[in-house]
């Protein structure tokens, strides 16, 4: 079948294109980058054991590490960078371990700054358990030692 108005074809196409421009307040799928940080999936938690080879309280910029303190743990399968966050070694109740100590760390392995980082929620050392993140992976402003402070729940607020 021949088109009766071949000259109009491009204009019709253009008109359709105009109508196809995105219109605000429609819920059609929007291709977007996630605006949330890497999620901490507690179902993917693993427990690693090893010997602390280095305690990094404040990494230098040259180390290109995630901010906050770290334990470099030598495990059977290799060296692991256990990230403890910015508050774990602060204050009187902070995590206290030294190179050569045996530790057990619980957390989730993630890729951060192009490197494998073990985002650590629990550190067990010298018979103590330090809770430095909650089950959603948020670092706590203060470390709980041996269950002090317990785990987070919505009913334990103590806020406004």
């Amino acid at each position: 079948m021949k088109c009766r108005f071949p000259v109009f074809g491009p204009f019709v196409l253009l008109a359709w294109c105009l109508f196809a421009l995105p219109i605000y307040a429609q819920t059609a799928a929007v291709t977007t980058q996630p605006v949330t940080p890497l999620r901490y999936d507690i179902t993917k938690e693993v427990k690693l054991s090893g010997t602390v080879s280095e305690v990094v309280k404040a990494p230098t910029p040259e180390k290109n590490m995630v901010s906050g303190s770290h334990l470099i743990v030598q495990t059977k399968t290799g060296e692991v960078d256990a990230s403890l966050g910015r508050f774990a070694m602060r204050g009187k109740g902070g995590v206290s371990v030294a190179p050569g100590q045996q530790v057990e760390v619980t957390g989730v392995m993630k890729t951060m700054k192009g490197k494998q980082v073990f985002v650590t929620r629990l550190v067990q050392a010298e018979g103590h358990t330090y809770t430095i993140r909650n089950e959603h992976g948020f670092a706590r402003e203060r470390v709980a030692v041996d269950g002090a402070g317990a785990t987070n729940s919505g009913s334990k607020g103590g806020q406004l």
Partner: protein
Amino acid sequence: MKLGTLWIALVVLCAWGVAGCGGGHHHVTPITTKNFVFYAAGTDSADCTYYIAGVVQISADGNNTIMGGVQDFNDGDPEDCIGTSPQPSGDTINPVGSSLSFNPDGSGNALLTLVTSNTALGPANNPNLPPGTEVFALSFANPNHALIAEFDGAATSLGSYDLQTLPTSPFAGTSFSFTASGFDPNGDAIAEGGVFSLDGSGNITGTADVNDGGTLTVFDIADVTLGTATEGTFGRGTISGSLDGITTTVNYYIVSPEVIRIINVDATDTAVGSAYGQGASAGTFTNASIGQSVFSVAGIPDFIIYNVVGQFTTVPIETDAKPKANLRGVHANGTPVLGTFAGIEDANISVEGGPIVSAEPFNGTYNLGTDGRGSFNFTSDVVVFGVYAVDPSLNILDPNNPLPLPLLNGGALLVELDADLIGTGLLLPQATAPVPVVSNVAPNVVFGAQGNFGDGERVGEFELLGAAAMDDGAFSGKGFIDDPTGILTGTVIGDNNSTFNATFTDDGLGIGRYTSGTGGFVATSPATDETIPFTVIAYDANGSQLFWIEMDTGISWGGPIEASTFTVPVGTKIPATPKNK
């Protein structure tokens, strides 16, 4: 001067003196005073997140003499940080040594020095200041409102400073929306928002959404009372009972009959927030109460670090609703009427190793109940904002100065209600006819930026505060760089003579979004000879109110830009030539 003239002058002066002293009677003319309520959130000298709220009484005779006041400070950690102010008294603000001094350049920049009874506060390493002294930087947008930041090397923070107008009668039958954020007794970050109503006896009832360390709960507020706050108490009172599920100690400061600042003064947890009245709209909110808007959401200072700023439009009612939806928030069958929203946002989570997204489109559905409480559910990401609408006639950023028509007041408070981020924010109506353009931004503005920078070794907070001239996008400012840990350049900066320069251009999207270009916002500290480039994006609500965000990797800030009645003197502009960061 001749001898006779001198005598005449002396006689006149003596006569004035006698008259001024009441002719010898012991009568003291009371000095008229004004109270200003302030609050701020930031990082204190022990590198702990802290909150402060208070009221300062100032003479209204033009001398700005500090007459007294009271404040509450709380970093929620008496073991490793400072702790909270003694309760129930709080910290007394002593007139002796306290002062408010304006920069003589007429910009509205000022320094407020408060000598408090809390000797744990202040720059202990500064022998020139007595223990308990705090110094705040102020940038006045008008005589009744300023942005405020602690500026004494001991702490840094950002907040608001507003004229206090106490209600003539108790709050009665008044409905409020509120948000607050901080951390709980476990040290978990917390953000919460909700709505409540007051009866004539101070009883509070309502509903709160709580994001406690990523765990979400809804709490019915009951058995809570608002204690009496009178002139003699500087409008400070105590809320008894819990707004989120736990009995706790919360103090409040009345700014006006429709605005209250609230601060948690518990020993091992802390938070600060605000409650805004819903006015005549209480009980009648609908999806249509929220239209085209700009918004800003931020985490918790030096704790949960991120900023998101954006703009969206709304369609308040779904187009395929069956049965035909009304605008009262629910269908006849009880299900919520869902409106839709779509917009553009800029987000920076990079200080904590997260992503940066710029001019990112988003959309979703929303619902606002008649009580003003609702939510925005982003379909383009796993994000939920709790939303709490305020009186449409109330200027959230400057409660004493409603915007003149045809500009829109009102808006809403926001709380991030998902398991991945914890923060609070604001939503302001955006002018639509026409949408703001950079050439129409107010010629004089004040600005506040609360930022964090992670240099790979540590993370620290800094603040920028000041007044600026805006001329067709050319931003020329003067004010304060406060970097008490030297996180920005390696050099500690506390410079009240800093300059700020940028050229903002409209991004062409037609949504009131302006960009400085990469490194195009330049802050210069003459005192330390440091020049710091930033990459900034601003979203314009109406030419008088903007939110901005810093978008470089590892560094971010959020905060407001507001129209000012003061004038930044010409001659402060310097070439925007970044030197280092």
